[in-house]
């Protein structure tokens, strides 16, 4: 079992619902302080987005954040350098698209990420079928790989994805890309599918933008992932105080 999973199982075992906020690396010069603020307010792990020009799985908010970060001249090297500055006691997980690593080199990417304190990776366009080489190398670096399971995933496939996931399994609450949503979602069905395959911690994400939605989702899964709502706040210029306030409101809702 990779370190990330050990830690996240521990959170669950403690009876606590995990709260995982998403930050876009390099969105602002002081982005690492935002991460720290979130952890201070009760995040159990943090997703670190690495910006990509063509974020196929992301809605307008994260698209905009990625372009803003890129326009600031960020890249994998600069982001890893920034990561080294973050001092928190919860695991950091990266999320980005496969081409970033493919182009940088798989082993070189994984080496660099883990060296910078990253313990897990979500690569939404790296399908289970294509993940072999990446998985192999990440095993030797103890980097956990997290797969998404979608409402469209059938039970057999959900089982495979759950079993392949490390750290946690990402239950996509709805057929949508990241962003706001108002519908109920299909989290219960997706989580049930994952649990039929594995007892890995299962976090619900995609479209969770309010404490109320987080509360509902946390009743279904073992944790919730909050992305676009937080990124929107940052785009609007939120500082550490505002972030703590935002995270706290989610923390209170799911506890």
């Amino acid at each position: 079992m990779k370190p990330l999973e050990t830690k996240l199982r521990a959170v669950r075992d403690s009876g606590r619902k995990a709260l995982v906020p998403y930050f876009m690396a390099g969105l602002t010069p002081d982005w690492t302080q935002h991460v720290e603020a979130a952890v201070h307010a009760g995040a159990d792990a943090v997703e670190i987005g690495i910006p990509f020009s063509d974020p196929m799985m992301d809605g307008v908010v994260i698209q905009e954040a990625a372009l803003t970060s890129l326009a600031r001249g960020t890249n994998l090297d600069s982001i890893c350098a920034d990561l080294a500055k973050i001092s928190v006691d919860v695991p950091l997980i990266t999320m980005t698209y496969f081409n970033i690593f493919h182009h940088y080199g798989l082993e070189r990417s994984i080496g660099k990420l883990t060296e910078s304190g990253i313990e897990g990776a979500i690569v939404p366009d790296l399908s289970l079928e294509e993940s072999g080489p990446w998985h192999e190398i990440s095993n030797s670096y103890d980097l956990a790989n997290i797969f998404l399971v979608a409402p469209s995933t059938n039970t057999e496939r959900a089982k495979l994805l759950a079993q392949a996931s490390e750290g946690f399994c990402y239950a996509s609450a709805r057929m949508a890309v990241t962003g706001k949503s108002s519908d109920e979602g299909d989290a219960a069905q997706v989580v049930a599918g994952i649990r039929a395959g594995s007892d890995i911690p299962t976090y619900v994400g995609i479209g969770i933008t309010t404490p109320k939605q987080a509360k509902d989702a946390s009743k279904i899964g073992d944790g919730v992932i909050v992305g676009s709502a937080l990124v929107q706040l940052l785009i609007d210029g939120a500082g550490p105080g505002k972030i703590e306030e935002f995270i706290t409101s989610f923390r209170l809702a799911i506890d």
Partner: protein
Amino acid sequence: MTDAKTFMQAPDERGRFGEFGGRFVPEALMPACLELEIAFKDAWSDPAFIEEYNTVLRQFAGRPTPVTPLLRLSEKLGINVYAKREDLAHTGSHKINNVVGQTLLTKRMGKTRVIAETGAGQHGVATATAAARLGLECTVYMGEVDTVRQSLNVFRMELLGATVVPVTSGSKTLKDAVNEAMREWVTCVSDTHYCLGSVMGPHPFPWMVREMQSIIGHESSRQLIELGVATPDFVVACVGGGSNAAGIFSGFANTSARLIGVEAAGGAAVKNGSPGVLHGMRSMLIQSEFGQIEEAHSISAGLDYPGIGPEHAYLADAGRAEYYPIGDEVVLDALQLLSELEGIIPALETAHAVAWITREAGKTIPKGSSVLLNLSGRGDKDVAQVRSLLRGE
């Protein structure tokens, strides 16, 4: 050919052509891709489906398109040029072949709606056309910049009953239209087929679209024999995503013909790109040092794509096909040359292939060679732009 490999077969079970292809999509779309693969394989081996596809191509889309000997151009260049006339297919380009097949497949899968991306509008108009014929709902994603530049094509799609959605993300052009179509497909995959417009995207699209365009090559090969050409020395096509090229190459992949793909210099993925992953496939892409995808730039919207279909990346890698860039500056000359000598105004995309032939006649193409040009589309869509360019507006 360096060895006895046979080319342009089905990809392997992961959808790979050599090291290229595959299926790099969000999990939400994986089931749809898997379903599509099964549906396509099933349909493509069902004589009734093939029969319907061929009937619609014949009765509706105007196939077979002829091969025209370009006598005056040939005389001028000292080579024998033959043009496969996809410009005469319904909606004015080869794009109709693919959408006829995919919309029939959509119906067969029990879906009632298609979405598509489009650059200048050719694939969008073709999709709207094929959808109208079958009464399928149709939404087309088009970069906002392109909706302004090509507002008449937007109106054409609307006349055909389609909804056109301007895409405001990224560079607001074709690449972003694909991203957006993929994002939207995530939300409606249960009743909607994504009708991709070229030999790109996740497996089975590159293979399926090539198969649906292979009729170009098969017809051409038969027609050239009727014209006394057993095997042409060269087969030349322009390459955006690469569907018209893949279609015509299919007919000659396992002959001695040299296969030439002509890319826009500002989007020359084979010459200036490197392997990467985008839009669901591993292929050759133009990208920055850190793997950010660069914008392509071409006088012709249809070649304005930073990648190339994975099978082309493979054919290049295997040395079976050659890919050359052609710069904007010679494209207008080629368009004028073909118009004046042959009475055929080609699309700007196609004019790249004409420009390569014109430039290389007597050089790469030895005098007396036989050359099959895929005349992928007509230039009507481009005349306003060409006029502005020639008048220096």
